[in-house]
Each structure stands twice: as structure tokens, then as C-alpha cells.
């Protein structure tokens, strides 16, 4: 299939491109930009006038809930959500049931995803068996099966000796280690940021120290072991400071933040809105503002949806008894645009956080940009179109998001995966 995307504003952060030009696609790859290659006859032309043509989005954390939690969501429903959100590559956290700690499981997930023929999946393997923090997983075999990194999702390792060994072992192969900074005892039994709001609402709190103490440990161990560390879901200004300090000391460490923590803070819990029950907890306004600034100037490398579909039964309970998490695949683009716009960033710089920068963290080289020869994963969107976030407008099986009722801008018109039109008509 040969496709021409005509008259669009091509924004490709990896190549620092922002200009109106045509994009030519053939054999699942970007064939050319600007002028048509010799003898190119488009079988289909997509009119992208007044639209942005960007690389397909890359999400650093999307829980598809398979295997194990099919009542919350299925691969099919969440792949639909990804396509509607313009997200063409997904890093999958290992906290499925059973967890992604076995090569066979990872192969099965990749196979199922490939058969659906929509977004590409990049499984993140479990660092320890069953995420139990006791025994190392077969990392070399897991990588052969398709894993791109190793993590504990949001189940911290209690025994620091095991954590150090796991990082050492991963460093043996130069595998990526993605860790979410959660100190197990400091976070235990807490449900909201330990601050004024939690105090008022009588919600047991999670202190910022739950993040900083863990971060300090991770950074020290990464220094000793030489592990390639990426910090996921930063939530606090103090945590950010620790990362900056480590970088100043010469350490190479990347980090990301979720769309929820970029736009919300503990005040948004309001009267116990369980959709604001998240891991890590929404912290103070000061923390949120620090995260926004750091993402804008690149101290935080990438933005992700932290997509976690939860069924209604999991949220229609008192706050502390509810399942944490929020659906996010379809919100990634509009919330990135909202933040970029409010921060005075160009579209190019904004989109970089969910394309080129995210690709670097996952280690994707053939996508996340629109260079000739790249995989033709493309997101074509109208940056000015209004959308209203509502239960029935979400394709994800999870309708749980704190942004329900929000009016946002940025509507995906077409999503292409490997040169095939998967969304839009």
C-alpha cells in the first residue's frame, strides 16, 4: 500500500523538522518527505491540511491487563484505545497475572499483540520472579523473548541486597533497569500524599520520603553496579532534586512523569474522588509545578500515560479501598498539548516528550521519527479540535480518569502503523 499524506504540518522532533510538506509511505516505511520518490503512485491520499503529521506516539507505560485481568480490559479494547490516541508503540509493565517473568509468557503476549496488528508492544520484564523481590528473573532469556527493560512495576523490592544483585546482573548485559521510587515501609498503608489534604480528609498519607529514600537507594546502587537506570513516575520536587544531584555528580540517569502528575495535585481529590487514587500519589501543587518545569526544560526526559484501566467495581468504593490507577492512552496527546501550550513550548518540543525522547528510553530506533526508511508509524492530529473527555467517548474499557468532563484540545484523525491506516477514514 502506497500512501501520501498531503499538505500536513510535519513535526518530527528527532529531525527538528516543523514544516508543511507531504509524507510518502510505501512498504510500511517512510519513503520520502517533500517531493515524491520517482515513480511513486499513491493508492491512497490522506488530506492533512491544517493537521499535524507526527511520529506515532510512544507510551512508556501502558497496562493492557492481559494476561490475568481481562475483566478490567483486554488487549483488543486497549489496542483500540491506543489507535484512537495515536499511540503506536507501548511499553508494557510486568505487573500482569501471572507477571511477565517468563520468556514463554512474553512471547505469547508479543504474539497476541502482533496478531491484532495494531500498536507495537515492548514488554518490560520483571526484575525478580513474580515481582517478589527474592529471586532474579531470567533476564537474558527474557530479552531474547522481546523484553526491552526490567522493572518491578510498582512493587518495590524490600531486600536491598536483592535489588543490588538484580542491578548488577542486569548491568552485566547492559540491560535497562526501570525503577519506580517507592520505599516499601514508608508507603505501606498510605493512600494519598501526606500533606494538608490527606490530613483534612483523614486519608492515611504517603510521605515524600517514600520517594526520596527509595531514590537515594536506587541512585547509590546504580552508581555501584553501573546499571542503566531509568526512574519512572516521578512525583515530587525533592525527588527531582536528587536526580539532578546525581547527574551533577556525573551519573547518567533518565526519568519520566505521568500525565496525571503533570496536571493534577492532591487538591483534585476533592471529596474522595477515587479516580485520583494513583501510585505514586498526587502530590502538592508545588511538586506538580516543579515537575512541569522540569519536563519543559528537559530535566525530566519523557511523559507517559501510565495507562491503568480499572473497572467500575474497582473504583466505586471508598477511596482507600479502591484500585489505584487511571486510564490514559487516549489522553496522552491532548494532555501533552495542554501542558506544552501552558508552558509556552513549541509543538515540536512538546511532542518530543512522547516520541523521540520516549523512543530513546525504550531503545527504539526505527520508530519515533519520520526519517526516510523509518517504520511508518504516524499520528495525524488536529491540534485545535476540541474534545470532551466522557465515559462514552473513551474506547478503553477503563473509564476511570480524573479528567472526566474536561474539555481538551487535540484530536487524532489518522493513526498509521507500519504504513497501514489503523484509525480514521
Amino acid at each position, binding site marked *: 500500500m502506497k500512501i501520501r499524506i498531503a499538505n500536513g504540518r510535519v513535526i518530527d522532533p528527532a529531525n527538528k523538522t516543523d514544516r508543511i510538506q507531504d509524507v510518502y509511505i510505501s512498504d510500511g516505511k517512510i519513503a520520502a518527505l517533500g517531493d515524491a520518490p520517482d515513480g511513486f503512485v499513491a493508492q491512497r491520499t490522506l488530506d492533512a491540511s491544517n493537521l499535524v503529521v507526527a511520529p506515532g506516539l510512544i507510551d512508556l507505560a501502558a497496562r493492557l491487563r492481559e494476561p490475568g485481568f481481562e475483566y478490567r480490559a483486554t488487549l483488543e479494547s486497549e489496542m483500540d484505545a491506543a489507535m484512537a490516541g495515536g499511540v503506536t508503540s507501548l511499553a508494557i509493565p510486568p505487573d500482569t497475572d501471572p507477571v511477565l517473568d517468563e520468556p514463554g509468557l512474553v512471547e505469547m503476549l508479543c504474539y497476541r499483540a502482533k496478531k491484532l496488528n495494531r500498536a507495537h508492544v515492548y514488554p518490560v520484564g520483571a526484575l525478580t520472579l513474580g515481582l517478589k523481590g527474592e529471586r532474579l528473573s531470567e533476564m537474558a532469556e527474557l530479552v531474547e523473548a522481546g523484553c526491552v527493560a526490567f522493572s518491578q512495576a510498582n512493587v518495590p523490592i524490600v531486600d536491598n541486597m536483592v535489588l543490588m544483585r538484580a542491578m548488577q546482573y542486569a548491568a552485566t548485559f547492559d540491560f535497562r533497569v526501570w525503577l519506580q521510587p517507592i520505599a516499601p515501609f514508608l508507603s505501606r498503608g498510605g493512600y494519598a500524599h*501526606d*500533606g*494538608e489534604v*490527606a*490530613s*483534612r*480528609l*483523614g*486519608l*492515611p*498519607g504517603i*510521605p515524600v520520603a517514600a520517594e526520596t529514600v527509595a531514590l537515594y537507594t536506587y541512585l547509590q546502587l546504580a552508581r555501584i553496579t553501573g546499571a542503566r537506570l531509568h526512574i519512572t513516575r516521578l512525583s515530587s520536587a525533592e525527588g527531582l532534586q536528587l536526580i539532578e544531584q546525581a547527574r551533577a555528580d556525573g551519573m547518567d540517569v533518565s526519568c519520566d512523569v505521568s500525565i496525571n502528575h503533570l496536571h493534577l495535585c492532591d487538591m483534585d481529590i*476533592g*471529596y*474522595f474522588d*477515587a479516580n485520583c487514587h494513583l501510585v505514586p500519589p498526587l502530590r502538592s501543587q508545588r511538586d506538580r509545578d516543579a515537575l512541569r518545569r522540569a519536563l519543559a526544560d528537559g530535566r525530566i526526559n519523557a511523559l507517559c500515560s501510565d495507562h491503568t484501566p480499572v473497572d467500575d*467495581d474497582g473504583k*466505586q*468504593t*471508598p*477511596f*482507600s*479501598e479502591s484500585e489505584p490507577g487511571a486510564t490514559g492512552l487516549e489522553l496522552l496527546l491532548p494532555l501533552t498539548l495542554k501542558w506544552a501550550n501552558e508552558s509556552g513550548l513549541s509543538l515540536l518540543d512538546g511532542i518530543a516528550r512522547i516520541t523521540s525522547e520516549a523512543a530513546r528510553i525504550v531503545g527504539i530506533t526505527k520508530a519515533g521519527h519520520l526519517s526516510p526508511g523509518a517504520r511508518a508509524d504516524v499520528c495525524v492530529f488536529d491540534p485545535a479540535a476540541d474534545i470532551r473527555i466522557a465515559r462514552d467517548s473513551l474506547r478503553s474499557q477503563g473509564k476511570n480518569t480524573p479528567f472526566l468532563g474536561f474539555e481538551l484540545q487535540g484530536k487524532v484523525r489518522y493513526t498509521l502503523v507500519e504504513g497501514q491506516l489503523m484509525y480514521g477514514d
Partner: protein
Amino acid sequence: MHNPQLNKHGELQHLLTLDGLPRNIINAILDTAAPFTEVAEREVKKLPLLRGKSIFNLFFENSTRTRTTFEIAAKRLSADVVNLNVSTSSTAKGESLLDTVDNLCAMQADMFVVRHAASGAPFLIAQHLYNTGRNDIHVVNAGDGRHAHPTQGLLDMYTIRHYKRDFTQLTVAIVGDVLHSRVARSQIAALTTLGVPEVRVIGPKTLLPTAMERMGVRVFHDMREGLKDVDVVMMLRLQNERMNGALLPTPQEFYKVWGLTAEKLALAKPDAIVMHPGPMNRGVEIDSAVADGAQAVILPQVTFGIAVRMAVMSMLAGQ
């Protein structure tokens, strides 16, 4: 933000928390309660205000005193009362909270009096009733987690007003385990709303919530300093499970440092009153001599509690 306990006319639809409840509504409840204290003195202790109404005491957490006083209050207003002790652990599978509520709604409930171990549970119920258009059903929070115990807070205000009249001249101290106390949160909300110029909280750092000052209180760790010249001493109950562990070393040490003794009480104003929401741990947070002493108003609190609960229920569902 939409306040779920007020209807669109700004009237009380549910009683969920005293935090953010306007002063005029608090005063209206206290004023309404006043004549109800006399009902108890009558030979026939009944009023017909809630005749034909069905009130469900929905207790997901054990309670004898609060449930009993709600039951007495409802019966004195001629309501039909059904007690449900749904003692379930939060994680135990089975009927969900909202399924239980839906079932009781199908039995034509007019009011739920809810106690739950999780903060915010009554809000969830109120929101659910709103979402399903059942605006004729009212919810009274009888204690949710660490969050609120509004009728306790109101009866405490009634008691203070009874003995001290003017809130705007008072210094009030709340002593003990504020961190886990829904009573303390409701007291602080009511006292600050009613214009008490100085509300103090006294306790060890392990038992005071983060950022307490933002609630408009002065924080003290030294009992003697904190009790100096106060008009009202409000003691809190120390739960057994908090007495030995990482929050406090022993009940003995707590008593020594924060227990209310006659000697410490002498630092307060001579006419200071001593309150306690009950049940008391004598010899832990309060000495028997003080609990039974002339300054204690702990039993009147219980009596006023019935009148205040009658006031709340009649304002919500009365004709």
C-alpha cells in the same frame, strides 16, 4: 467544588462533615436541638416528626454508644429504626457497599446513618444517591475512618455553648491522638467555623497529622504549655492498638506526659470544662479524679448527643 451535603438551595441534604459546613447551618442545628433536650424530661418521650419514616443504622464498624444514641434519637422522633451491623473487613469479598445501599433503598429507606472504617464512605453513598436521582434519601455520617464524626462534633459544640455561651472568647485545647481521630477533625472544623479565636492541639508528633497548622490550630507538644489558661479541654480516646508500638512506647508513658490529671488541669482556667467523646481509658488519657470531677461534663455530652442527633434527623427528613 460541588458540596455534596448541601442541595442546590444551600440547604442540608446530608450531614457528612463539618468541614466547610456554613456557620448558619451549624447554629441552626444547635438551636433546633435546644428544645429537644426537654423531650427527655417528659413522661412520654416522643415527638411525631419522623412518623412513618424508615431509618437504617448502617454500621460497618462496631459501635455501641453512637448506634444506641442514634437509635434513641430516631425513636423519640417516632421513626422506624432498623439496625444493620455489617461487620465486614474492607477486603472481604461479598456484597459491595453500594449494592447494600441499593438493596436498602429498594426497601424504601428514608435515611441512612452510616459508620464505616474507610474515610469518605458516606460521601460515596451520597454521590451514588445523587447519581441515581434518589434525592429524597438522606445520609448521616456516624463516623468514617479518620475523617469525620459530625454529630459528635456538633454535640460537643452544643455542650460548649451550654456552658460557655460565647465561642468568640474561648481558648480550646484538643489533647491526644489527633492523627487517627475523626472526632478531632470535626471538632476543629466546627470550632474554627464558629469563631473560636484559639484552637490548640496537644500531643506527640507521632499522633498529630502533617500540616495541622493549616487547619487553623496552634500545635503544642508540651501539655503544660498547651493547657495554660484554656476554657475547654477536649480529651481524645487513645485506641488500644496505638498504645504499644511505633507510635507510642507504652500507655504509662503517654499517661505521664499527656494524661489529664488534676495537677495539669489546674493550669487551665479555674472554670474550664473537661470533655471526652467516650469511651474513656481511665489512667491512660484521663485520670479518674478528673473524669469524675466537678469540671467534667462528659455525661451531659451524652445527653446532649441525643438532642443534637434528633435535630439533625428532623432537619433532614422531618415534615
